[in-house]
């Protein structure tokens, strides 16, 4: 027997009212905790994939689209840029390093990206089995690709035009061969099939050739088209890539480079940091308003705890007086009532906390198959602790008045009634 059991039994004696308070509190915590998780996962995902890239240069269009397509590999590319232009940019003294990207095909929904080995190094991709691509049509695949598409070293496969698993033309003439598999990195690399740029060019020049033979030419619609002009394959001046990832040599680059590119070339430059901030601020309003609703729910639940405790004080007046008669001090009675409020709050917190994690795990299972994104860690010590402290605070506040009332019970008067 201790104070804790007394409080607990008192709550248990009124299961319906306790349940209502618990459910209300848990709902509020669930929403807040869930949003917090989503937000954190999203931000860490965004952060991880930016991986220090200062600028993305691609064809003119939406800057956000350029970032989404070239860094996160989710949206369609804005178009192509000339390899010669990209090479020129590489020689700019403000530029430390560039990584070219050429894309346009997929295998089972996983994008095939032509690039160089720096791209793998950028995401700290360590080859688990086999090695990095060496020759044309060698590919090194991300961990998730290997798992989902069940590809092994030495497997052959042909890409499908576009970014959808179905519906595009199959490039049957050229078969890729898996030469390596990356370890899981928790970045976009896990979802990619990497090869050299030349492979992408070859496949698409053939592809174009093939189509050129057709009477009805439908080349124009392929805005995500990557390959160079089919008729001048050997000429570097007409070679094209999808985009170029740029790293500045020094902060000066941020000032002049993007403006220069956007103004003086037919390419556009987009900063991942700026575009992602723009995206955050758009989403922020939605998240904030849902958050607000959740806090209102917690407030209501706190009020409901207060009312049930306050009401029960009337019925329990005699019991409280009895405890005093038995030698229980005023502080003991005070603590018992406060503890009842806190028990509900902490109980509600625990339920909401557990359910939000379960919800995230459920969604992440769903998201991994559909959007190719895995959810990482489920705990954020600082924010979780803050939420727990807030809960305890609400429980404390809600039970404060009833507890004071319990403490002030006039024993003699109550007992002689």
């Amino acid at each position, binding site marked *: *027997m*201790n104070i804790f*059991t*007394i409080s607990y*039994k*008192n709550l*248990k*004696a009124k299961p319906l009212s306790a349940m209502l308070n618990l459910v209300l509190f848990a709902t509020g915590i669930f929403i807040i905790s869930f949003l917090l998780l989503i937000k954190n996962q999203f931000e860490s995902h965004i952060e991880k994939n930016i991986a220090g890239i200062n600028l993305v240069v691609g064809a003119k269009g939406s800057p956000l689209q350029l970032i989404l397509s070239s860094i996160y590999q989710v949206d369609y590319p804005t178009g192509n840029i000339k390899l010669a232009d990209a090479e020129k940019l590489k020689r700019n003294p403000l530029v430390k390093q560039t990584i070219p990207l050429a894309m346009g095909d997929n295998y089972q929904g996983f994008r095939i990206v032509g690039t160089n080995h720096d791209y793998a190094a950028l995401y700290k991709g360590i080859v688990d089995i086999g090695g990095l691509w060496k020759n044309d049509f060698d590919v090194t695949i991300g961990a998730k690709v290997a798992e989902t598409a069940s590809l092994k070293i030495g497997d052959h496969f042909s890409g499908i035009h576009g970014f959808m698993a179905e519906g595009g033309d199959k490039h049957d003439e050229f078969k890729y061969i898996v030469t390596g598999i990356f370890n899981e990195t928790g970045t976009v690399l896990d979802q990619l099939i990497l090869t050299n740029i030349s492979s992408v060019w070859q496949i698409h020049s053939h592809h174009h050739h093939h189509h050129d033979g057709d009477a009805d030419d439908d080349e124009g619609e392929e805005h995500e088209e990557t390959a160079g002009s089919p008729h001048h394959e050997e000429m570097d001046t007409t070679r094209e890539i999808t985009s170029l990832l740029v790293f500045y040599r020094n902060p000066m680059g941020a000032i002049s480079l993007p403006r220069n590119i956007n103004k003086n070339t037919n390419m556009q430059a987009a900063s991942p940091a700026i575009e992602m901030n723009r995206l955050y601020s758009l989403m922020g309003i939605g998240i904030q308003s849902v958050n607000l609703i959740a806090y209102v729910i917690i407030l209501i639940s706190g009020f409901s705890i207060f009312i049930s405790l306050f009401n029960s004080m009337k019925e329990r007046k*005699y*019991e409280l007086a*009895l*405890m*005093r*008669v*038995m*030698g*229980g*001090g*005023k*502080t*003991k009675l005070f603590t018992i009532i406060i503890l009842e409020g806190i028990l509900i709050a902490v109980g509600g917190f625990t339920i909401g906390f557990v359910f939000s994690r379960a919800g995230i795990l459920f969604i992440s299972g769903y998201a991994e198959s559909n959007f190719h994104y895995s959810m990482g860690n489920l705990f954020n010590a600082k924010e979780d602790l803050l939420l727990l402290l807030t809960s305890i605070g609400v429980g404390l506040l809600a039970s404060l008045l009833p507890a004071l009332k319990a403490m002030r019970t006039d*024993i*003699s008067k109550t*007992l*002689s009634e």
Partner: protein
Amino acid sequence: MGPSGCGKTTLLHLMAGLLRPTKGTVSVNGIDISSLTQSQTDQVRGRQIGIVFQRPHFIQSLTVSENLRIARYMNGQKLSKQEITELLNKLKIGSKVHSKPNELSQGELQRLAIARAIINKPSVILADEPTSSLDDAHCVDALNLLRQQAEHTETALLIVTHDQRLLPFFSNIIQLNSVKQ
């Protein structure tokens, strides 16, 4: 002994330290409880005084055994299972250990109230109208029980009542009269 409204209960509450005297002192076992602090009074009352009230009230959310245990816990002592079983068996409600108070009959509640009053081995048992709601047979039962337990534990027993049926059983009787103002 005395008519309604003459201040019997007030006197009992004063003796139990539930009320503070405006004049004079109240001593329990040599301790002047009227000069102690509130929490010290609570302690002394919990350990030295067992009280049986007119209507047997219990904490409804706790079981019979928990209601006894809380009487000990409230003044910082522990109670073993064995003590509870022995006491409840002696009072013939041993089978109700795990029942809730609202599942007990009036007579059983009365016995449980006595059990609670003596659980801390107090130096004095104060009973406030313990028999007023009982019929003749139960009245005698309850009275005998109180007396037995008091004698058994060598505890002083003081009953406040207007119940004339109790008169023949006691040697020391204090008569209170209401003062007409």
